[in-house]
């Protein structure tokens, strides 16, 4: 019996050495107590290498959980990640309000420019009401060319709509009992920022806010997770949806482009089109504004109803210069934008361009010699340009569509 007791005691000793070893080698959590939540998060224990998502979301202030959800104190991946909002993408439209919303974040006051989420949720990019309306109208399934359906039930929550559309019903092909809507639903209904992209590397993007603000192309090196939100959105990010091919309405299908463009000039997918230099030198976001891309808070029926920037927005007409605004106070939206994407050293007293709707073109500044300088938002490259006034241009101020400017200024592309 003594031998048995001795063996058992040795077994116990060994076991406890094992327990001690396990207890002492278990990594201690890396504790972060973000200012906004005030409660501990251990996420950095594993994710210390992850870059900060943006300068406007400092990790010490936001932490991880306020946006991503998850279990802040768990050190096992399965449990820690089990309640993450939107999986790896908290900006997905179905969870964006919980992740990015809030009065002081991205669903706040319109006057303060904090209404990003309500604007995006009613925008054509998210409702897909433009395509749905065009299909229903073109095939005689609705009489008026006015949006009635979106991919989900959508309401204009501020109760004030210049377009007059207060609500979109959720589109379903069953409503119409038509082969057109059935094919449309099958082939086209996934083409909005709330949906996952089509298969293929050239289509790869996230959904929700990250569809635009988290560029994937060129970021996927080394298999490292992509953890960035940026205002420096290159044209290639827009190209994950746009410029990817054409639509065949008879077959109700998308025909992907088969060419392999070697430069920006040929990356536009409009085989016979003409382009001026701005269109193939700058990035899309250098001209197209926040409201055009993210919506203006109203529900619209067509992309044309929301796009308004023209050549004259920056260049003016032969009768008048482009609209400008001088920055007078530190809270100016232009200064905030320039802080978030510091391609331009903007300061109080600078004069920038504004659109006819009052949106600041914060990356374009008036120079003392009367010219303008533009800093490309994605590349930071500096361009200078002149206004049309006092030049040889004779274009009728009332005819300002791009096709008129193309007549003199376009470069023809070899087919």
């Amino acid at each position, binding site marked *: 019996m003594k031998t048995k*007791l001795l063996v058992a005691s040795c*077994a*116990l000793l060994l*076991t406890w050495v*094992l*327990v001690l070893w396990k207890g002492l080698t278990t990594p201690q959590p890396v504790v972060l107590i973000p200012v906004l939540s005030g409660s501990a998060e*251990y996420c950095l224990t594993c994710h210390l290498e992850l870059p900060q998502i943006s300068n406007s979301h400092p990790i010490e202030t936001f932490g991880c959980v306020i946006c991503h959800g998850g279990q802040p104190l768990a*050190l096992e991946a399965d449990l820690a990640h*089990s*309640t993450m909002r939107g999986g790896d993408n908290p900006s997905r439209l179905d969870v964006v309000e919980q992740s990015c919303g809030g009065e002081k974040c991205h669903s706040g006051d319109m006057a303060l420019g904090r209404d990003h989420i309500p604007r995006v949720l009613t925008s054509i990019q998210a409702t897909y009401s433009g395509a749905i309306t065009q299909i229903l109208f073109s095939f005689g399934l609705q009489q008026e060319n006015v949006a009635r359906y979106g991919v989900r039930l959508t309401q204009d929550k501020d109760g004030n709509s210049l377009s007059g559309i207060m609500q979109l019903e959720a589109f379903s092909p069953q409503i119409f009992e038509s082969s057109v809507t059935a094919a449309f639903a099958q082939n086209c209904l996934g083409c909005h920022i709330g949906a996952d992209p089509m298969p293929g590397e050239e289509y790869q993007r996230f959904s929700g806010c990250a569809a635009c603000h988290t560029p994937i192309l060129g970021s996927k090196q080394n298999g490292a997770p992509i953890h960035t939100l940026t205002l420096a959105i290159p044209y290639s990010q827009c190209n994950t949806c746009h410029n990817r091919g054409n639509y065949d309405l008879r077959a109700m299908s998308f025909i992907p482009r088969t060419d392999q463009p070697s430069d920006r000039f040929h990356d536009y997918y409009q085989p016979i089109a003409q382009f001026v230099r701005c269109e193939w030198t700058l990035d899309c976001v250098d001209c197209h504004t926040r409201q055009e891309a993210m919506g203006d808070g109203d529900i619209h029926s067509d992309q044309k109803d929301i796009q308004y920037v023209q050549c004259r927005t920056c260049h003016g007409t032969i009768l008048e210069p482009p609209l400008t605004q001088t920055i007078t106070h530190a809270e100016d939206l232009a200064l905030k934008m320039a802080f978030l994407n510091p391609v331009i050293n903007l300061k109080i007293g600078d004069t920038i361009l504004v659109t006819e709707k009052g949106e600041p073109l914060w990356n374009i500044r008036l120079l003392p010699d009367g010219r303008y300088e533009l800093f490309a938002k994605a590349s930071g490259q500096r361009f200078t340009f002149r206004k049309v006034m006092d030049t040889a241009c004779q274009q009728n101020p009332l005819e300002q569509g791009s096709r008129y400017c193309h007549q003199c200024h376009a470069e023809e592309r070899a087919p």
Partner: protein
Amino acid sequence: MDPHRPSKRPDFYLHLHPPTIPARQARFRYTLGAGGLSVFLTLVLLVSGILLMFYYIPITKQAAESIQRITYLVPFGFWVRNLHYWSAQLLVLTSLTHLLRVVFSGAYAPPRRLNYLIGLFMFATILLLDFSGYLLRWDEGIRWALVVGTNLLKFIPLVGPSLYLLVLGGDLPNPSSLIRLYSWHIFGLSLMAVILGVWHIFRVRRDGGIAVAPAAARQSHARISRFELAQREGLAILYGIVSLSLLSLFLPAPIAPPMSDVSLASTEARAPWFFLWVQELLKYGPPFTMGVLIPAMVFTYFALIPYLFPTPQPHELGEWFPKSGRMVQISSAIILFVIIWMTILALRPAP
């Protein structure tokens, strides 16, 4: 040994044991060590439970988080929690084994009828302790137990709603339910278990020690001393700690995200393993019959064994499967088989 020399007198631990016990009934293959292991596991539960009380927060919004803190931050917290968990699971098994040993060896016969009942009520208390401890997690993993399991109380005629109120402190699971369950777990039920346990062990001695045939009818008259018994217990305790430590090191207790909304039921949620058979039964009939009546009948059946069935003959005591207890053995085996079968059925993946 000279009884007048104080240094040779048995110390407190030895004093708790009878001076000698029959060797044949002290063999592991007869007792399966189940009673002794149950006492050992209870002590581990008390110590580890007290340690957990230093960190556990019985507030609905913080309970699951405090368990995560115990698991991931507190030094050796994971080990203490796992020890508590595994001791609790094993205690259900060892006390059930002890109960079945008594039933299948006829040891419930007079004069041990009262002690048999004390033991049976202690087993019920252990199940309730396990169930309440399981609920203290207050995470997504306990949804069935909280929503469906406790709801069964309401189906008990007359006293059901009052009993539910007593246990959960409201008509529905609510923030005060957790503090109720916590109080029941660490105080009400634990105190009851300790009182019943001490009474049970006292009655074992008062009823003449382990059940055994009268001297004239015994196969063997060999006896072992309390020193030998204590050494065997020591060996069992050492291996018990080794097993528990290893289980706790490599098989962590379940953990899940905090419960989001207590009012939501989930079809995927499972009962704790020792109530799986009740969960399965509920699929086949009304809640009162399947969830209250049948479990109550099973308990009543076991409680009435010493009173309804033929008393085992004294010369058959101290051996497995006495002939005079056939009826009890067969009917108990059938009940046991149905419970195990229902448990296996409940473990099938949901369609």
